[in-house]
Structure formats: structure tokens, C-alpha cells
């Protein structure tokens, strides 16, 4: 079985986001970049499936050379090789186009990625890839098991979950609790240095969307403190002052 895991390199979840260049660029000063937390779940499940069923795991990133530490970490966790498409990830369609081009060439049985990237939170890439390849896409996937050629999947929906069955090939957007995050061990880190990382140039030139600028949310007003012994006042304030109940 051939598994492709698509990963993003994104600011750590604790990052205080700021912008530079007249609010047109993310300020990267002091920001730690990590593998997208949802992508980490996808990778962890791919490595588990490799150990259980036997599979090759390829990691794919669409990004600049500064994404390579994240890619090496994925190799250290257990992926066999990696491909970096040398381009800034412009929008979901562009990223999906790159993934689909590589998937058409290499015919993967399973394409896994996070349910969404935690920078733009679009949650669209898996579906667009599925459409481009003409295969089913499912997200957000909480459980994934493969039994012969039947794939059993649990997908989260509002207020519950759906249990699904499908056949390979599939594109899946993953989230917890599909697997426990894996931490690379020393042996993994050593072998990751020599695992193949291929750099390819992007395809497709259509510009469907373009970000013209960024903005930070306005600060909230000062908090109004209510004494615990007057807690009931809160309900009155929510009705008369905030007018929301």
C-alpha cells in the first residue's frame, strides 16, 4: 500500500499573530513553525498503518525551503521519503493542484492530511484533491481502519458521528483521536537525515484568490467584574445591558 501524507508548516498554536509590511505579511520573527497539529494526526496514523499492514509513507509539503525542518521531523517520525513542491501555498485550489499532480504520477492508495491547516482554517484541500482525482474525500476523520479492501471510517458531524465504509483509493482529512501524536526518537532523527527529500517545481498558474492584507481583531473592552455574592446580577446584565438573553 502506498500512503501520501500532506503536511503544512504553520506557526505554533501558542503564537501571538502579528503582521509586518503594512499588514501584508505574517511577522515570522520569534515564531516557531510546527507540523500542522491535524497533519500530525494523519502522519501518526499513516505510520501505524505502515507498521500494522506494511506500507510506504511519503510526506508532501507545498512550501519554501524554510518548511524543510518540519519535513525532516515527519521523516524522523517514520515516513520513508518526502517531496517538497517549491512554492508558497497560495490558496487551497493551488495546493490541491500540486498534490493532485503528484498523486496522478505516483498512484497512492491513501492520501491523508489534516482536516484543515491552522493558518487559513479552510478545510478544503482534501475535497478539491478528491474532486481532481475523481475519488471520494471524507473529513473530519476520527477513526480509520483498513480491513482487506474495505476502509472503515468514523467521521465527526454536528453533535455526533457517522460510521462509513468505502474502498481505496481515498482522500481523508484527519483529526483526533485517529492516532496518538508521535515524537521522533534518536534513531529516527539520525535516519531522517539520509532519507530522500525531492524538491519539485509547481504546476498551474491560475490565480483564483489573492490576499490583499491582514488585520488583527479589535481589543475587547475592559472586563466588568461581578462579586461572587452578587452572581445573580450577571443574568440581569446579560438581559438589560448586553441584551443577549
Amino acid at each position, binding site marked *: 500500500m502506498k500512503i501520501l501524507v500532506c503536511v503544512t508548516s504553520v506557526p505554533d498554536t501558542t503564537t501571538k499573530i502579528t503582521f509586518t509590511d503594512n499588514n501584508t505579511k505574517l511577522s515570522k520573527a520569534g515564531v516557531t513553525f510546527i507540523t500542522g497539529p491535524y497533519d500530525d494526526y494523519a502522519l501518526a496514523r499513516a505510520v501505524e498503518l505502515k507498521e500494522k499492514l506494511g506500507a510506504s509513507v511519503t510526506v508532501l509539503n507545498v512550501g519554501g525551503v524554510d518548511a524543510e525542518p518540519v519535513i525532516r521531523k515527519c521523516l524522523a517520525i517514520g515516513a520513508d521519503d518526502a517531496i517538497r513542491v517549491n512554492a508558497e501555498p497560495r490558496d487551497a485550489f493551488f495546493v490541491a493542484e500540486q498534490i493532485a499532480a503528484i498523486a496522478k504520477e505516483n498512484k497512492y492508495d491513501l492520501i491523508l492530511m489534516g482536516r484543515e491547516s491552522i493558518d487559513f482554517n479552510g478545510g478544503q484541500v482534501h475535497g478539491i484533491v478528491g474532486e481532481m482525482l475523481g475519488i471520494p474525500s471524507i473529513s473530519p476523520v476520527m477513526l480509520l481502519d483498513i480491513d482487506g479492501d474495505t476502509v472503515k471510517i468514523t467521521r465527526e458531524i*454536528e453533535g455526533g458521528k457517522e460510521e462509513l465504509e468505502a474502498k481505496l483509493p481515498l482522500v481523508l482529512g484527519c483529526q*483526533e483521536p485517529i492516532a496518538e501524536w508521535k515524537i521522533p526518537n534518536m534513531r529516527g532523527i539520525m535516519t531522517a537525515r539520509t532519507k530522500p527529500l525531492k524538491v519539485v517545481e509547481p504546476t498551474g498558474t491560475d490565480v483564483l*484568490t489573492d490576499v*490583499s492584507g491582514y488585520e488583527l481583531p479589535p481589543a475587547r473592552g475592559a472586563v*466588568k467584574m461581578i462579586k461572587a455574592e452578587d*452572581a445573580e446580577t450577571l443574568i440581569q446584565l446579560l438581559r438589560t445591558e448586553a441584551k443577549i438573553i
Partner: protein
Amino acid sequence: MSVLIFAEVENGKLKRSSQESIFYGAKVAGMMGTSATVIVAGQSDNSSLAEAGKYGASKVLHATDARLNEPNGMAYATVVAAAARQEGASVIVLAKSSLADAMTARLAGKLKAGLAANVIELPDLSNGFRVKSSIYTGKAFAYNDLKADTKILAIKKNTIAVEETDAAATVESFTPALNDGDFAVTVKNVVKATGDILLPEADLVVSAGRGLKGPENWGIVEDLAKALGAATACSKPVSDLDWRPHHEHVGQTGIKVSPNLYIAAGISGAIQHLAGVNSSKVIVVINKDPEAPFFKSADYGIVGDVFDVLPRLTKAAQAL
């Protein structure tokens, strides 16, 4: 050129979030000098669907093929793409949901559309087509210029205040060709909480964290939620400990909510939790620790014991 809105029905009625997307879509149609058409798939009746008129739509296309009675993102994308072609839609509007998310991506792929997710305002048409969206899980906003011929806007809850009129929309049956490939995934079972207010749709949310000390204490959270007509939610540690189901987990790696009211009891307010809730209109924080970081992001705060404060709030809410 027209605006098409993908609406969802639940028990045959237009969902709350779809009422908002229809109203938003009709506003965009007004700005563009065109009309708003709604596309619905699945079981419903004409009088329920005609209610789309109340929110500004002039016409509803109803895809009635029995195979569409089960929600199916891939098949619905085929239906919406066919409706968009028939209507010559240049803008497609929908409200984010687990079904709409699955549908939208496939649709964007089919139509090669310019897509903006988590849209939080009406577009600015003064210079092209610009929309503001929430990014970095609510920590920032982006201004997106949509340049493709077809544009898709996935709007976040509470993007626009919905107003109703007495108008009714005309309802037409719609029978596009379906793809067998869209039905390749079989739904074996659906497990869904019944009778509760669903978190992503809720206007009011009561959420609690580790300060509740254990799942056996959730009764006081549920009581307050019931008294207010709110949904319940929880922090990530609570979901990780299996005190509450994952679909109640709010935060950076869980559900992102934007209700009118978010009450956080016994949650300290880590930046990852704030990210999932900071677009709520009003935030109330109840914590016994006056140094809890959440107070800095709150509109109202009570320093106190949740086991004392929550039942008293419940009583006060019941007395309203």
C-alpha cells in the same frame, strides 16, 4: 449572473444557519443588482422551502431524487454545480457545517472557483470582489480578493443579523444528472445526540473545564444551559480525559464557535482555547483563580467557586 445559496434542511425545515446564508446571499444579490436563488437537496415540502423568501430569496430549486435524502457532500456538490450552471451563478453562498464543508471543496474543484472560508462580513465590491475572513483560528483576519469567474463564500455563524419579511419564494423541482461515483461511500450508522441544541448552531453556549473536577459534576453545567436554552461545550483537557464527547470540545483543534454568549466556567483560558471562542459576541468567565488569563479576554467576570456560582445563575435564569 446571479447569486446561488446552498441551504440545508433539517427535519424538512431550513436550518438556522441556512436562514443566515440566504439572507447574506440575498444582500449580495442586491449589491450586484441580481436575484438570489436557493438550492436545497433532500426531503422537505414546498411550504417550508417557500420560507426562503422571508430571507430574501426569490426562487428555490429543490433536488428531490430519493438518493439525496441522506446528506452526501459529494452528491450535493454535483447538484449545486448543476444548479450554478443552470442559473449562471457567479457567486455561491453557504453556511459552514460538516455537510457544507464536504460539499464546498468538491464544488470548488468542479467549478474552479475562488473560495473564501470563514467569511465574516458582506463583500466589498468597490474594487473587484473583496471579502474579509477569519484566519489563524480567529486570531486575525484576511482580506481576500476573489479573482475567479465563480466565487464561493462559506460564511461563519453570526456574520449578519437576519431580518425577515413576509415574502415567499417560488419552489421548482430540480432533477440534475447524478454521478454513481458520488455514492461510493456508504453510511453504516449515525450516532447523534438528540434533543440537545447543537453547538455550532447555538446562540448561547455554556462551557466548562477541568475546574468542574469530574464528569459527574456536569449536571450544574447542563442545568444552567437548560435554563438559558444554551448548548454545552468543554475545553480540550475535558474532552481528552473523556469527561465529555469530542464534539463538545471548543478550541484551536476542536469546534470554533461564534455565539452571542459564551460562558466559560472553570476554564483558565489558554491561547488555544481562546482561539476557538474569541469571535463570540459576549464572553463571561467564572473562575476561582483571579489570575486566570481568560479574564483578560472576557466582557464579564466572576471570581468564585463554580459549584456555588453556577447553581445561583441557573436559579436567576429560571426566574427570568
